């Protein structure tokens, strides 16, 4: 691109977007870190609860930390421990706990256009810390600032992870040591839905995104009767198909008008 074209393209960026583009990788790390801080509200009670539940299930500290550090996926850790309390066969526990994480494959695929060109080493650690929170935060940032370079994207991801993953470990430890210490009337159970809704809302910028989100909501409620979170695997693909379908329809309509 010529300097002139660059200048012309820059002039249609919002001030926020051009500020994001000028950040050095280290500043991107800090930016991601700061933006991920609200998630502490979510992870702290959730992680503590895991510490409590896992202790009650009879797991010892190394095993509890084994789950938290090696699996690093809240819903799946809870599933495994819940099934252990029910004395399910080991194979059932393993299959169910992994099935709960199937959505991670969808996250992985959706990050390919943004992070696929990273070095294999970088992709390896990004995969390890690819959790709901880091994914949701990163994808909304990348979509909002599509012209960020690869280093800036990786930096932001790293920052988000540094603010969230150590908290998960700390929260688990606190849960083991303190037991149920957060009073229920703080209603922190609802911090998770609120933060995810807050991340999704700004992404609803086209009719296709809106349609996809609506199908996701309706689908997840209609298929909620399915066991062990399987409803998500009906609702989410339906929603993605809807989004892609509406996008194609809009393109055709716009094409016909030209």
């Amino acid at each position, binding site marked *: 691109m010529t300097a002139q074209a660059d200048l012309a393209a820059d002039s249609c960026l919002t001030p926020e977007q051009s500020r994001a583009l000028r950040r050095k990788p280290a500043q991107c790390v800090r930016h991601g870190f700061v933006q991920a801080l609200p998630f502490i509200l979510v992870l702290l009670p959730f992680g503590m609860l895991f510490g409590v539940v896992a202790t009650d299930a009879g797991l010892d500290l190394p095993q509890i930390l084994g789950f938290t550090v090696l699996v690093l996926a809240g819903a799946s850790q809870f599933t495994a421990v819940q099934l252990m309390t029910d004395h399910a066969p080991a194979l059932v526990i393993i299959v169910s706990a992994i099935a709960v994480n199937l959505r991670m494959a969808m996250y992985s695929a959706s990050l390919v256009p943004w992070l696929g060109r990273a070095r294999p080493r970088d992709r390896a650690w990004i995969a390890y810390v690819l959790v709901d929170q880091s994914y949701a935060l990163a994808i909304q940032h990348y979509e909002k600032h599509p012209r960020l370079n690869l280093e800036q994207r990786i930096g932001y991801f790293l920052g988000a992870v540094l603010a969230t993953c150590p908290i998960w470990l700390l929260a688990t430890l606190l849960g083991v040591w303190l037991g149920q210490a957060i009073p229920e009337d703080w209603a922190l159970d*609802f911090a998770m839905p609120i933060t995810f809704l807050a991340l999704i809302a700004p992404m609803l910028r086209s009719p296709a995104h809106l349609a996809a989100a609506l199908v996701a909501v309706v689908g997840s409620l209609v298929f909620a009767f399915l066991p062990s979170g399987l409803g998500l695997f009906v609702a989410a693909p339906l929603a993605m198909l809807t989004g892609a379908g509406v996008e194609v329809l809009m393109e055709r309509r716009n094409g016909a008008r030209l």
Partner: protein
Amino acid sequence: MTGYSDATIWLIILTVALGTYGLRWSFLGVFGSRPMPLWAQRLLRYTAVGVLPAIVAPLVVWPAATHGQPDPARMIAAAVAVAVGVATRNVLAAILSGMATLYAALYLIT
């Protein structure tokens, strides 16, 4: 007591960890810089808006804290968070107004 031997528990932990890592690494690791087919890119653009609302919607309508009973305070708070997020495009503003609404509604309703 869990009723499982230590070896079984560690087998569960390690297998779930490996399987989960495999899922996370899958596309990112295999595809890398090779371009995804156009239809796949089109579908994947809607991953976030397809998955995250589907995770959240049941939690809003049937909250665990009320043992699955629909709770007006939580529904109002969720609606406010979405409305503020759409209007301001500011994630933090949406979180804060959602939680503030929740506390206000819980205080007023109960």
